[in-house]
């Protein structure tokens, strides 16, 4: 499955090996891991909880992967996103893209992350010394996703 939503942690080494297994045409593997930081918007983060919209999340990410495959020469793409309670240093999200060439792998991987940030229904709630707060969407994430629309 190209999209997995799970509570459990993931192992980038195993996922990369799995995705490119038995395909000797793969010359490039680009990966991204998102990690919980202990500081966000100037506040210490002790813990966060990730909520999602079951069903739509998988569908939205599959559509993003489909778009990436339409735009770049990509063999396979994988997204693993964790939900539930996470602490600083915990991994949140993994994106892996295999391709013949690195330009396609990098572009597709970054595109998937940028679109996931604005299109996939996940919400983060952080626990800080001042109490819990929902993380606000960033204008910079909208800008990151939008720049792909003027390219090509």
């Amino acid at each position: 499955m190209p999209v997995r939503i799970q509570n459990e942690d993931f192992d980038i080494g195993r996922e990369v090996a799995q995705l490119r297994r038995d395909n000797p045409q793969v010359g490039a593997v680009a990966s991204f891991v998102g990690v919980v930081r202990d500081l966000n918007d100037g506040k210490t983060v002790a813990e966060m909880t990730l909520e999602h919209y079951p069903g739509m999340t998988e569908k939205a990410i599959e559509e993003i992967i489909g778009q990436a495959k339409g735009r770049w020469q990509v063999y396979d793409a994988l997204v693993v996103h964790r939900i539930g309670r996470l602490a600083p240093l915990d991994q949140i999200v993994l994106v892996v893209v295999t391709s013949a060439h690195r330009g396609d792998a990098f572009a597709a991987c970054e595109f998937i992350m940028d679109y996931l940030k604005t299109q996939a229904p996940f919400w983060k709630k952080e626990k800080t010394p001042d109490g819990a707060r929902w993380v606000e969407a960033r204008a910079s994430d909208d800008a990151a996703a939008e720049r792909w629309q003027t390219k090509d």
Partner: protein
Amino acid sequence: MVKILYFAGLREATGQGAEEFALPDDVRDVAALRALLRKRGDAWAEALAESKRVRAAVNQDMAAGDTPVTDGDEVAFFPPVTGG
């Protein structure tokens, strides 16, 4: 009937996660449904205020205000997403 789902801050503000809702005949799109829900009281009026950045999905696809809503649909309201 439509199924309405609320997520994250909107779920907390409205105190509601999911409901079955009888769609009036004159409510035909996302904006009209959102306006109708605002009339449920102060918490709803504030959570779904026009000034608030509220996102919606119809049948698990991102929707705009003029996206049609019809019987049997699954409609969701939520804040801008912050995953990844």
